C-alpha cells in the first residue's frame, strides 16, 4: 500500500509532527516555510532515508497554546508549504529563461569591451539552446498573447481616442519653445543691423 505524501499528528507535549514525502515537498520549499515560522514556533527537521525520502518537521509553539490554536498553526504551516512548493517549481521552470535574460543583458554591456571570439561562440551555442527552450514555452502562450495584442491594437488604432492635456505636457519641446526662440533671434539680428 502506498504511503500518504503528508501525515500530521499532535503529541502529548503539544508539538505538531508533520511527515512529508520529499519527492512531493522539496527540501528547499520546506526550509523556506520553516524559516517563515521561526518567529512563532521552534522548528526542528529530521529525515529518513539516504538520500532523504521523508522529512519530519516538528513544530513547537513558543507560547502556551490550546489545541484549536495548534490546529490553526498546523493549517497555516501547510498552506505556506504549498505556496513555497509552487514558488520553487516556478523558479525551477524559469531558470533557463532567467539565465538567458541576464546573459543577454551582460552581452549588451560587454560589446563595448571587445570580448574574445571564443566568448561569442560559447554565447551563440548557449543562445541557441535557450531559444529552443523558450520557443516551446512561447508556443504554449502564443495564442493567449495574440489575443491580448489584438485587443491592445484595437485600443491604439481607435481614431476617436483623445485625451486631456491641461498642463501641455504632451506638446513637443520644439512646438512649445522654438517659436519663442526664433523671435528672440530675429530681435537680436535687428539690433545688430541698427
Amino acid at each position, binding site marked *: 500500500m502506498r504511503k500518504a505524501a503528508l501525515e500530521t499528528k499532535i503529541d502529548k507535549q503539544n508539538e505538531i509532527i508533520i511527515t512529508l514525502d520529499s519527492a512531493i515537498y522539496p527540501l528547499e520549499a520546506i526550509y523556506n516555510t520553516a524559516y517563515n515560522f521561526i518567529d512563532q514556533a521552534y522548528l526542528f527537521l529530521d*529525515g529518513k532515508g539516504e538520500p532523504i525520502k521523508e522529512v519530519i518537521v516538528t513544530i513547537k509553539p513558543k507560547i502556551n497554546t490550546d489545541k484549536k490554536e495548534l490546529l490553526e498553526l498546523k493549517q497555516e504551516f501547510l498552506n505556506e508549504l504549498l505556496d513555497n512548493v509552487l514558488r520553487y517549481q516556478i523558479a525551477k521552470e524559469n531558470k533557463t529563461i532567467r539565465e538567458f535574460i541576464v546573459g543577454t543583458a551582460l552581452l549588451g554591456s560587454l560589446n563595448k569591451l571587445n570580448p574574445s571570439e571564443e566568448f561569442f561562440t560559447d554565447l551563440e551555442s548557449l543562445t541557441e539552446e535557450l531559444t529552443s527552450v523558450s520557443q516551446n514555452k512561447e508556443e504554449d502562450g502564443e495564442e493567449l498573447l495574440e489575443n491580448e495584442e489584438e485587443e491592445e491594437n484595437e485600443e491604439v488604432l481607435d481614431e476617436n481616442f483623445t485625451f486631456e492635456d491641461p498642463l501641455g505636457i504632451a506638446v513637443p519641446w520644439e512646438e512649445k519653445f522654438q517659436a519663442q526662440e526664433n523671435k528672440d533671434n530675429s530681435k537680436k539680428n535687428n539690433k545688430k543691423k541698427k
Partner: protein
Amino acid sequence: MKNNTHGVIKFNKNIYSEKAIVSSIAAFKHLAHFDIQQKGDYYLVILSKINPQVKDVIKDEFNNYVLAKIKTD
C-alpha cells in the same frame, strides 16, 4: 550556583549543513560549552555548562538559529 546542565541535539547530515551548525555554535558560545561530533547520518551537538538562565530554551533557540543560518547562508 552549579552550572552543570547539559543536552544533546541530533542534526541530520542530509538536512543541516556543518557550516550552519559551526557558525551557530560561534553565536551561542557565550551561553554554553558546545562540542560537535559525527555519528552515522547525524551531527551530534553536545551542550554542557549551559547558562541556567537559558537552559529551558537554548536547545530550541539553537535549532531555530541553525535553520535560519541554512536559509540565509
